[in-house]
């Protein structure tokens, strides 16, 4: 998997959302609206690699996203 961002996914998310995050943090509690969520996920996809639209619909927490990319790295 090609990564263009020099830091970790968690660091990237914290920087984008200007918030301290844990794996349990729900995106719905830290994003402003659906547009912000979508923009963030598209930025994540661009910087950290593939995630399908279908998979995005099941991303509820920061941990869900971290797990997706950890699995992607293993495979």
């Amino acid at each position, binding site marked *: 998997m090609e990564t263009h961002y020099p830091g970790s996914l968690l660091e990237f998310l914290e920087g984008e959302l200007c918030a301290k995050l844990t794996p349990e943090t729900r995106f*719905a509690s830290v994003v402003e609206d*659906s*547009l912000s*969520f979508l923009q963030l996920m598209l930025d994540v996809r661009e910087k950290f690699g593939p995630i399908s639209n279908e998979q995005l*619909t099941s991303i509820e927490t920061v941990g869900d996203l971290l797990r997706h990319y950890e699995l992607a790295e293993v495979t």
Partner: protein
Amino acid sequence: MIAVEPQKAIGRVTFATEPLAKWFFDARPLFPLHYEELAMNQDAIKLDLDASRYEELEEKGALHIATVRDNGELVGYFVSFLMPHLHYASAGTMAYTDMYWLKPRYRTGYGAKLLLYVEHCWRQLGCTKAYLSCKVKQDHTAMFKLLGFELSDFFFVKLLR
């Protein structure tokens, strides 16, 4: 003093394709909220969903209903019609947006997820092209463009009586 019931935390939110009867029953309390928020010309045109015509469309395989549920409670929906375009009959099935709505407190990412889910369904159902719109007073242009939609029409309405 009015007692305000505390809002319960958002639970497990799921997206699904559901039959008309199930959605319609659960959505009835939401329709007036949807109507009040978005319908135009409310003095002249009252909310009156034609269930029998929706049933006809469902029987013809021309209706798709995507739902958003929070621990089973209906909190949003996206309804579309699937049928060939009259001008391009050989081009396959087109997806036409009928209506969509999400409870305001879920507009923190779940709206985008609903659109992603619906697009996934349209593709799975073999649709050739999708038609999506929004109200001028609730402009989703930026989100639609991010999802790959392009602006193609301006749509005007005029009350005639």
